[in-house]
């Protein structure tokens, strides 16, 4: 019998060793070997092997019972109340012991969290738009995309009879409502006329489709009678001192009487239109017309029946549109729809769900400026960055203090502390810090809310913070930040081996802390990206402000409501010209800086072939317009008062000339439909070309524009030249009073109007700056903390170096150089990233700057200087210390 035979199979033994619980392995292995011998002797090899295998399996998991650890001492559960109390007691003591460290952490975290909180409110507010309507899920806005010839427009407005036809013809449509901006008007209060804006024509169904609660009046009939008006609560209080105003009369434009037929609550701020008054839709002349191609002017909302899908509704609406367009096109253009389509032209209808309008829709004819989803993302990302930077501070400072805490860990472990309870202790320390920070953050957020509202142009209320969702979010945020910031130190520290720690062999691994360096690099990369972003945003804004916009907007006074003067406008104008300091006056409502626009199609022949049509602005101006605005004529001439033929003359801009594609456009005649029904045409001969000037956002290219010589009394623009503007304006105001004693003198300056066009961009610029400063500040606090601990760490080294003759300068640079290196790495990482993001942002502008190399140099240098300033403060302090003191301390 070979020796090998008396032993059980090796692989079974191996299996046993691998899988059997370690603490009972020795005895079980021995027992089984002894039993194998016994079976082998009694029953022979085969049976012995079989029984052995069977027995091995019976002591493998999951069959085997694990022996519980023998405990010689009592270990309380980690979650025992006493333990928890102890964790927090120790955490509290630690915070008190290291006040500087704790305050850096708490301040950094609370700023980060406050920013996060504000952004959360902002995002929540943006996402809440139009969600509050009872019918929100069933309301769709109809959009119309039109292409004919070289014109392509994407509108949120449709023809006047679109909604009604849909309601009558399509079963899936329950109801519709149309809205259209009305001009602002004057309302009489006492003897004073006050201008009120934000008034809309609306169908009565507005109140059954949308949820606007009535404080007074009957929603069923509020807008069904002529000369009625529905006002909101603020207007009611302003003019009647009461919300019960139904039946009372408002005097409009000094003459007209309107009976208040309803008072609604102010439309909530998170609605995509902000009207304050509604007047009946049927009072709008065009609203009763039955046209499909030609008058796209009505924001139309469709209420779908329960359970109707948007896709189905869209198909039905497209079918309806095609059917009706056909006959309409035949009438106007003499073409069938298929002929129209064969030229590549089309009318497309699409739907936008109500709740998507604010963030996703940015077409022509929106009722109000909508939000921008991109900014929601950008702000959220930045807020997260700042929070992460603050968390990194926490982690870095914690690991920097590692050597100090390591001894504590070693001692606790020697005294029998379990790893799990050490983790709990470190986590509760970070939790305690975050809870303090959160309390501080909420107060900071409350304090900063008015500033933030100003910055973002919102009216987020303080009460919003008490919203259950926000409270839950706060608690979750605290918890997550506490875990995020505390997890790394907790798990890392608690893994120390007490022997190594107490022997002091940890110092080496401490210097090689790649992770901490990586985190510092991350912090600075983020900061540099933000610095570059800020510089680029401001440069772009500066570029826009300084760009040659084709006219001059300085010292230009705009008087708006001159319609009230009627025929007296001309004599008022002549009076103005007598005022010293007034250089030029032009009478028209069409200005590059307002929203008064008139888009028209011009045809080169009387055949009205859509293929060659030019879509242009048609502005009615007088002969002084070009001179007053300081625009330049590049070809031809200005309008001439003495030439009677100029009533059919037009001056186009360079963009229009380019669009027409002809070398010499002067004296060409273009036709414009005067009346859809009778097909009367107006022909205009081009007498001049004016240099391109910007009349919409600089995000867009200059579009074709034509000026015709017509009276338009909607406004007066006055070119001034005076060093004493207030006095001059006083004089102009006196002239105004001569002509219209009851009417307010309303004016603005053109450069102010221009700046409001770019409020959005300016807003982003300001937010960027604030965030950048905060990110830099938090990052620097962390760096300051790190430098402090580094210097403390190397106290002895510095002492010895000084004794051996090192200079203060040498020691300072020794301590700073590591951080400087990190900042350089951060610059390398941040520059391409910043370039990529900012180039993408700039791509949204038709007139844009190109990012120059020095921007990165400035950003890098700024980060570097800040780093050196922060670090060298500590470094110099350490270097100046008397070596006797540092060396004596043991």
């Amino acid at each position, binding site marked *: 019998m070979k020796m090998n035979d008396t032993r059980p199979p090796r692989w079974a033994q191996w299996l046993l060793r691998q899988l059997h619980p370690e603490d009972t392995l020795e005895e*079980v292995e*021995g027992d089984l070997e002894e039993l194998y011998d016994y079976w082998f002797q009694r029953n022979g090899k085969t049976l012995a092997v079989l029984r052995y295998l069977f027995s091995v399996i019976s002591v493998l998991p999951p069959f*085997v019972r694990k022996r519980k650890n023998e405990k010689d001492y009592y270990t309380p559960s980690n979650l025992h109340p006493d333990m928890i109390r102890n964790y927090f007691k120790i955490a509290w003591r630690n915070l008190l012991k290291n006040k500087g460290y704790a305050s850096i952490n708490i301040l950094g975290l609370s700023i980060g969290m406050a920013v996060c909180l504000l952004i959360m409110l902002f995002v929540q507010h943006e996402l809440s738009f139009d969600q509050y309507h009872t019918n929100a899920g069933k309301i769709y806005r109809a959009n119309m995309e039109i292409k004919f010839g070289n014109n392509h427009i994407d509108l949120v407005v449709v023809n006047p009879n679109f909604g009604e036809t849909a309601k009558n013809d399509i079963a899936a449509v329950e109801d519709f409502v149309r809205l259209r901006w009305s001009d602002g008007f004057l309302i009489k209060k006492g003897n004073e006329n006050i201008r009120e804006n934000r008034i809309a024509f609306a169908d009565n169904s507005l109140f059954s489709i949308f949820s606007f609660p009535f404080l007074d009046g009957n929603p069923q009939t509020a807008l069904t009678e002529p000369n009625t008006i529905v006002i909101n609560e603020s207007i009611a209080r302003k003019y009647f001192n009461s919300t019960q105003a139904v039946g009372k009369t408002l005097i409009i434009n000094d003459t007209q009487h309107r009976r208040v037929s309803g008072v609604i609550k102010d439309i909530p701020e998170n609605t995509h239109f902000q009207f304050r008054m509604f007047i009946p839709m049927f009072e709008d002349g065009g609203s009763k017309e039955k046209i499909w191609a030609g008058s796209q002017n009505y924001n139309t909302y469709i209420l779908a029946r329960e359970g109707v899908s948007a896709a189905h509704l869209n198909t039905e609406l497209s079918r309806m549109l095609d059917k009706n367009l056909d006959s309409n096109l035949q009438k106007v253009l003499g073409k069938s729809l298929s002929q129209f389509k064969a030229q590549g032209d089309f009318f497309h209808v699409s739907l936008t769900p109500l709740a998507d309008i604010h963030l996703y829709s940015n077409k022509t004819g929106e009722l109000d400026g909508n939000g921008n989803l991109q900014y929601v993302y950008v702000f959220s990302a930045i807020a997260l960055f700042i929070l992460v930077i603050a968390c990194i501070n926490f982690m870095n400072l914690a690991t920097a203090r590692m050597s100090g805490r390591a001894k504590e860990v070693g001692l606790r472990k020697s005294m029998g502390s379990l790893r799990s309870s050490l983790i709990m202790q470190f986590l509760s320390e970070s939790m305690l810090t975050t809870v303090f920070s959160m309390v501080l953050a909420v107060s900071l957020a409350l304090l900063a809310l008015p500033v933030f509202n100003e910055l973002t142009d919102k009216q987020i209320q303080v009460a919003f913070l008490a919203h259950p969702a926000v409270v839950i979010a706060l608690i979750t945020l605290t918890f997550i930040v506490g875990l995020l910031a505390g997890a790394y130190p907790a798990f890392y520290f608690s893994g120390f081996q007490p022997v190594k720690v107490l022997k002091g062999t940890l110092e080496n691994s401490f210097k090689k802390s790649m992770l901490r360096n990586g985190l510092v690099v991350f912090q600075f990369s983020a900061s540099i990206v933000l610095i570059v972003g800020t510089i680029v945003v401001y440069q772009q804004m500066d570029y826009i402000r300084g760009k040659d916009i084709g006219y001059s907007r300085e010292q230009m006074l705009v008087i708006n409501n001159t319609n009230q003067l009627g025929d007296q406008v001309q004599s008022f104008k002549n009076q103005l010209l007598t005022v010293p300091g007034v250089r030029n006056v032009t009478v028209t409502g069409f200005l590059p800086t307002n929203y008064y626009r008139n888009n028209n199609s011009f045809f080169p022949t009387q055949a009205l072939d859509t293929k060659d049509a030019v879509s242009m602005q048609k502005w009615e101006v007088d002969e002084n317009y070009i001179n007053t605005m300081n625009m330049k004529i590049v070809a031809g001439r200005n309008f001439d008062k003495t030439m009677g033929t100029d009533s059919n003359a037009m001056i186009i801009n360079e963009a229009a000339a380019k669009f027409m594609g002809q070398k010499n456009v002067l004296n060409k005649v273009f036709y414009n439909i005067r009346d859809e029904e009778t097909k009367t045409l107006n022909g205009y001969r081009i007498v001049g070309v004016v240099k391109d000037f910007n009349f919409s956002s600089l995000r867009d290219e200059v579009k074709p524009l034509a000026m015709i010589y017509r009276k338009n009394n909607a406004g007066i623009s006055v070119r001034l030249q005076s060093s004493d503007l207030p006095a001059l304006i006083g004089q102009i105001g006196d002239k105004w009073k001569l002509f219209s004693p009851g009417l307010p003198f309303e004016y603005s300056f053109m450069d102010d109007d221009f700046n409001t066009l770019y409020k959005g961009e300016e807003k982003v610029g300001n937010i960027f700056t604030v965030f950048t400063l905060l990110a830099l500040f938090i990052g620097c606090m962390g760096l300051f903390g790190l430098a402090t601990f580094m210097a403390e760490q190397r106290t002895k080294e510095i002492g010895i170096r000084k004794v051996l003759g090192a200079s203060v300068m040498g020691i300072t640079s020794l301590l700073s150089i590591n951080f400087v290196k990190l900042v350089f790495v951060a610059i390398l990482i941040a520059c391409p990233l910043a370039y990529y993001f900012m180039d993408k942002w700039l791509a949204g502008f038709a007139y844009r700057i190109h990012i120059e190399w020095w921007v990165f140099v400035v950003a890098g240098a700024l980060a570097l200087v800040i780093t050196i300033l922060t670090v060298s403060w500590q470094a110099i302090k350490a270097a100046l210390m008397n070596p006797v003191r540092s060396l004596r301390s043991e």
Partner: protein
Amino acid sequence: MKRTYLGEFEEMVLLMVAILDQEAYGVTVNQALEEHTGRIVAFGTVHNTLIRLEEKGFVNSKLGGATAERGGRRKRLFQVTALGSRTLQEMHELRQDLWQMVPPHTLRLSRL
């Protein structure tokens, strides 16, 4: 009648530990069970039961000295604790009492 529940197999194993006196460990308990009751049980069952008895406090154990015959591996020797022996005695007494109460003819009848 407050007593930790002791299963039938547990009782057997506990008895075996008592019978084996100072020599009770995995192998001997396994062999004794086979020998005295004719039951062939998996080693794991005995192992688990011994651990469970120890957890319940009926036996305690200690590791014996190294032995030559099993590759120098130590044995875990089991001993009945005071609680174990009292429980065994109580069970024995209880059964005897119960036996006393059984009328003789019922058992005879049932045997038929």
